[in-house]
């Protein structure tokens, strides 16, 4: 049984460190290797693992996650198969699992059914990157009914009054988009970003995790000062995509994850 998101952030904070949240594309390269990757990341120091439901038209994603999503779909991944994978992973990893899905696969399954199956699989929360609070009514109701945390995103372009509205519907943590762009783009770690994160933490009243473009331990460490958690997706998926074999990809992900976790203060 997964620990809850709240406890995961509290545990990291108790140890005086920033939480590490790696992302994997569900079902990539195949279900077994994806499961192995989640276990590897868990052992390498993940505090929480995000599992992406591959989608044909991932608007918020850069080339790396577009590619891993396409390959997962080509390998037969569906929202249902990713939920099954989450159920298997939940029994094997300590870190809570959070699903990330674009809204259309969620609607195609039906919001109530998706929420029930996600909760049944042991997921602790769900992120829907193309569902702003304005359109989230039915989803919020379905997720609350299953005690699933609803993670919303805030961006550097989000004005303060909107930030409060986003925080009000967020549970578990707030996902702060660290750059103006798509996942895996080049991150400039400047004062503006740190100020934005600080502001988000003040308003949110719950942990704030920063993601998009975080690729190196140095970047993670730079964000740790202003965030409760750091999310890394494309950099890990790139290790898998560029590896000549899946095993070497897993080993590369393990090394990178260990380095990232250490840079965030894990002993």
């Amino acid at each position, binding site marked *: 049984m997964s620990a809850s998101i709240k406890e995961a952030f509290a545990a990291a904070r108790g140890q005086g460190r920033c939480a590490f949240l790696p992302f994997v594309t569900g079902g990539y390269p195949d279900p077994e290797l994806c499961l192995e990757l989640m276990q590897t990341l868990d052992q390498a120091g993940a505090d929480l693992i995000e599992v992406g439901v591959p989608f044909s038209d991932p*608007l918020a994603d850069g080339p790396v996650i577009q590619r891993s999503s396409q390959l997962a779909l080509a390998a037969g991944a569906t929202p249902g198969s990713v939920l099954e994978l989450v159920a298997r992973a939940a029994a094997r990893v300590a870190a809570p699992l959070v699903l990330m899905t674009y809204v259309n696969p969620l609607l195609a399954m039906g919001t109530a059914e998706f929420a029930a199956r996600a909760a049944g699989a042991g997921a602790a929360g769900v992120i829907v990157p193309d569902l*702003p609070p304005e359109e989230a009514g039915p989803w919020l109701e379905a997720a609350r009914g299953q005690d699933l945390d609803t993670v919303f*995103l805030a961006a550097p372009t989000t004005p303060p009054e909107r930030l409060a509205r986003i925080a009000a519907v967020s549970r578990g943590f707030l996902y702060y988009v660290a750059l103006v762009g798509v996942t895996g783009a080049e991150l400039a770690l400047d004062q503006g970003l740190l100020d934005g994160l600080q502001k988000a933490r003040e308003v949110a009243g719950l942990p704030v995790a920063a993601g998009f473009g975080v690729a190196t331990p140095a970047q993670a460490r730079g964000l740790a000062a202003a965030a409760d958690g750091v999310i890394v997706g494309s950099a890990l998926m790139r290790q898998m995509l560029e590896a000549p074999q899946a095993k070497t990809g897993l080993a590369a992900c393990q090394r990178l994850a260990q380095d990232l976790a250490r840079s965030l203060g894990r002993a």
Partner: protein
Amino acid sequence: MSLPDEQGHFGPFGGRYVPETLMPALQELSRAYAQAKADPAFQAELAELLRDFAGRATPLYEARNLSRRLGRARIFLKREDLAHTGAHKINNVLGQVLLARRMGKRRIIAETGAGQHGVATATGAALMGMECLVHMGTLDIERQAVNVERMRMLGARVEPVEAGSRSLKDAVNQAIRDWVTNVGHTHYIIGSVVGPHPYPMMVRDFQAVIGREARQQALERTGRLPDLLVACVGAGSNAIGLFHPFLGDEVAMVGVEAAGHGLGSGAHAASLSAGSPGVLHGASLYLLQDQHGQVREAHSIAAGLDYPGVGPEHSLLKDLKRVRYMAVSDDEAVRAFMRLTREEGIIPALESAHALAALEHLAPELPEGAMVVVCLSGRGDKDLAQVAAYLEEQS
């Protein structure tokens, strides 16, 4: 009726389903558009450009040879093919470049399928002295080479999109990603009545000039309103432009989708006839998808119809049964293309040829003396090589 609502909903359709990064930009765009719409200076400048630059009003031409062959009705063609750049797309682009200038944006991006919207956008950007980049699928770059050249001549960069379908759907994905990345100084000119609010409303408003003119011209010419309007529907901009000013009248309307190789073949672009509601490119609408919510690739011989979704307002009009939607095949469209070329001396765009092909089905149902307006949304110069190759293949 006054749709959409404040949040951009047309009944259960429309809305805003986008990454948070774009939400403030969409709110800013909504505000800027509302102000511009109410500003007589903006409207006057747009009207002048539409008249002197785009060549409006476009004629309402009575196609007598076509009417005679079909037998019963008087068929009028709304000649959007005679608008500057060769299609209705310029109507929307001129509105949006004026808006972009007003908002202080210096970079314009667009997606294009057939290249007509890309050419119109490149033209508008040249007029305004703005930087312009057009995202275009590599399949479309191959089949619409003439328009690619035109865009480049006009100073635009054409960015090839290799992903997925290599056509319009993935060009829109890439344009939205570009906008997410450059939202501070960039305005995204969506070419049709899709995308997040306010685009479906705003593009409709700019295209409604088609229907307003047609209405006035019909009244002047015949003293009454038409009985039937017919337009092709890819994502739906020329159709909504023609239909919208008549929605409150007793005028029948038919939207014609692309049936590609046939609705049963799976290779078509008929989202209303054979799709289901979902979310694509920021709005809730009818789209082609599998049972898991993965968006299917569309197919049409007409690159401008080769899109797996139809705008939210059309989606509602279908559910309300206010507009009848049907689909015609690649083959029917090519035959209609050839017929109009030989019969009237007008080479239509393959997109518009779908509307003409539907007439063959609709004419026998019409009462004697019925008056029909067909939107001839664009001219077919861009399609000559493709039609020639198609006919070669068939023979």
